[in-house]
């Protein structure tokens, strides 16, 4: 594949689309599919066939505003329809401007869309994720062909370093530095692994990227393979994401067919192939050393680091592990330059970040914003705020490893350092908004239950400590705890955070620590007054009702 051949595929595909036919783009990603957008697409197809209208019905990826799904975009023109069901098919196909369809209109000129900056999601909802030509028509694989033809591995690492990209899995390790370390490590062979074992409750960023634009991740991986000198890649993806698995499978097959994977990629000596590994169903397998053990066919349990995977990873070979979103940033960085990417965001956190905005917020969905945007802008402008009748209470970021951020920090810019300072973490991008109907002790207990059941059981602090903390939190929510229990809880938080073997245990106390820090009075109320102000916990004295 040469750049000319690539351009030809791109222009042919574009020409076909630009012939003037009307397109109805139906979201076929997880959120809308759950609302039967597949049935809707079938109905639209049928209606087009029946009426003989010149209209092309396409399945595309996620358009972001999941709470108003299924979404349909009417192209050209970009008119967006929301809450569309199969019953609307006839009206939608017949006359776009009828009274009936007007009710379904969803303005693109609202903060939810306007305030976003799409880099990772630039193709989401615009292309058919199961067709490689559409990705190519959207400048896909251009970065790869260009990099292989004109750049040295070292120049690519430099470009990624220049972009300031930091690991999007949550820890924020500089991606360029990691690539450089793996490139310098010596080994008979090297590996590239894409961590798609997204497991935080309320997080669906990676899922959506894989379902909406899988080639983007593949392209990032192939470029990474070339930059670090690897010949083999693995995508470790959750078994709970069957659609992502299916689309990745198609993407890999099509990429092989066009020669982006395999030997002599783009007529160079570089050979690289990617294999899918389906997750074993454990949250801890998202921890890199456990993930490697799982790929090797062993029980997914972490091991102490160092050595880091960059030196000794998969089958003891130097291994580059990056998250889905990190890889998805790479094609754009190489196409538009590291400096362009570094201009977005803040001083230490560059670029954009995809968030899964969920919970008590009007616009639930997937968003991508520049780093440094404040929580208030994200929740109240993009998210539309908390639904009527309730008050904002806290936002939980970073899943079970993160913390709850109270109202006083709403003007905090969202970047790696600021979130850490207030006791939470960036995490992979889950953002759960809570209103006054949430009991913070109960929230802490929920996350502790998650950590307890997902602990692998290897090290004692995490295995036994999370179980004891869960029991203590349960006692508090049931109203049977004493002030001494609270002391024990605090002691356990400190020990588990500092003594655990891997990130799961080290961060497991975070939801407790942050709620203790900002909502201490709620803990005290539960213990001393047997009162749950949200009315969720049954901690009060049980009233015996005589019948």
């Amino acid at each position, binding site marked *: 594949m040469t750049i000319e051949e690539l351009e030809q595929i791109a222009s042919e595909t574009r020409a076909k689309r630009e012939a003037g036919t009307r397109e109805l783009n139906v979201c076929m990603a997880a959120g809308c599919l759950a609302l039967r957008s597949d049935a809707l697409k079938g109905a639209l197809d049928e209606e087009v066939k029946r009426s003989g209208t010149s209209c092309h019905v396409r399945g595309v990826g996620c358009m972001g505003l999941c709470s108003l799904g299924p979404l349909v975009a009417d192209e050209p023109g970009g008119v967006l329809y929301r809450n569309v069901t199969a019953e609307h098919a006839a009206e939608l196909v017949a006359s776009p401007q009828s009274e009936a369809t007007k009710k379904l209109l969803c303005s693109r000129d609202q903060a939810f869309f306007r305030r976003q900056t799409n880099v990772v999601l630039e193709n989401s909802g615009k292309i058919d994720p199961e067709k490689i030509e559409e990705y190519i028509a959207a400048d896909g694989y251009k970065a790869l062909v260009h990099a292989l033809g004109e750049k040295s591995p070292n120049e690519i690492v430099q470009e990624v370093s220049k972009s300031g990209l930091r690991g999007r899995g949550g820890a924020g390790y500089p991606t360029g530095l990691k690539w450089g370390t793996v490139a310098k490590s010596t080994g008979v062979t090297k590996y590239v692994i894409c961590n798609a074992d997204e497991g935080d409750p309320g997080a669906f960023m990676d899922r959506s990227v894989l379902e909406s634009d899988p080639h983007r991740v593949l392209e990032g991986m192939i470029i990474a393979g070339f930059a670090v000198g690897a010949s083999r890649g693995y995508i470790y993806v959750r078994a709970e994401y069957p659609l992502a698995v299916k689309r990745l499978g198609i993407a890999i097959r099509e990429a092989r067919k066009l020669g982006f994977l395999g030997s002599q990629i783009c007529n160079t000596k570089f050979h690289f192939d990617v294999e899918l590994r389906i997750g074993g169903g454990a949250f801890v397998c998202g921890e890199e050393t456990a993930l490697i053990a799982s790929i090797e066919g062993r029980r997914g349990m972490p091991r102490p680091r160092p050595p880091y995977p960059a030196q000794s990873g998969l089958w003891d070979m130097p291994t580059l592990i990056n998250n889905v979103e990190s890889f998805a940033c790479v094609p754009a960085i190489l196409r538009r330059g590291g400096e362009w990417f570094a201009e977005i965001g803040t001083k230490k956190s560059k670029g954009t970040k995809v968030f899964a905005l969920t919970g008590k917020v009007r616009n639930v969905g997937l968003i991508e914003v520049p780093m440094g945007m404040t929580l208030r802008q994200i929740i109240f402008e993009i998210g539309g705020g908390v639904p009527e009748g309730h008050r904002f209470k806290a936002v939980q970021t970073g899943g079970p490893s993160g913390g709850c951020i109270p109202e006083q920090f709403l003007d905090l810019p969202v970047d790696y350092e600021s979130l850490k300072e207030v006791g939470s973490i960036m995490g992979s991008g889950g953002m759960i908004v809570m209103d006054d109907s949430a009991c913070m002790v109960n929230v802490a207990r929920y996350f502790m239950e998650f950590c307890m059941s997902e602990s692998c059981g290897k090290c*004692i602090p995490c295995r036994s400590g999370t179980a*004891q903390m869960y029991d203590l939190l349960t006692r508090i929510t049931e109203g049977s705890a004493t002030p001494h229990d609270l002391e024990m809880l605090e002691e356990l938080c400190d020990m588990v955070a500092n003594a655990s073997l891997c990130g799961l245990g080290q961060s497991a106390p975070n939801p407790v620590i942050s709620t203790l820090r900002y909502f201490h009075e709620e803990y005290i109320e539960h213990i001393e007054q047997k009162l749950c102000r949200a009315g969720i916990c049954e901690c009060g004295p049980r009233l015996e009702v005589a019948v």
Partner: protein
Amino acid sequence: MNSAPAVKTLVIDGTDVSATADQTILDAAREHDIAIPTLCHLDGLSEAGACRLCLVEVKGSARLQAACVTRVEEGMEVTTQSPRLEKYRRMILELLFAERNHVCSICVSNNMCGLQDLAKRLGVTQVRFPYRYPRLSVDTSQERFTMDHNRCILCTRCVRVCTEVEGAHTWDMLGRGVNSQLIIDLEQPWGTSNTCTSCGKCVQVCPTGALFEKSKVGMRVPKNPGFLSYLNEMREGQR
């Protein structure tokens, strides 16, 4: 080419010590009679780094390091005893005692138990956490040995000795978190295993009364994990 590993000098608890680059902090400390408590570590087996009792403070590192898996480095300053470390170690032992059913007075390993010894040494006088008392099984199906899951601390010494030294890989783990449990082959009674060679290595390396010889109930014969170093030495010698 010089293949001998480089020699490093470091400070452990204020004492200057030297060690080769392939040694761990634990190796170096023990050579100099500095005691660091361990439970999952056993000379002759691979390291799990799981019990976290050997955590030490290393100057300049924000995180505590497990002495059994951390290699020595030039100029390292290691602290193995501090109020914070001792507190964590005691809590870890408390968590172990509360996790299953450890009743020393009726245990076959009373007074010769790794867990009990450490508790005495580190001054664990009480367990402040509620005992979880799970209902676990006792496997007596094997001809010579018994497995009492109630006394297992999941140190995985048996798993490692069986895999690494005996080469049988009869033992493994099932489940996760606090519900983890040791299993024989594909979770079957020990007596039905056709990979187990009845060598008894697992019994000898077990620090508690979880694994014991049937004939020895009530006879108080201590276990002898020291055979491992001897065995490894002899095997080395034959190469």
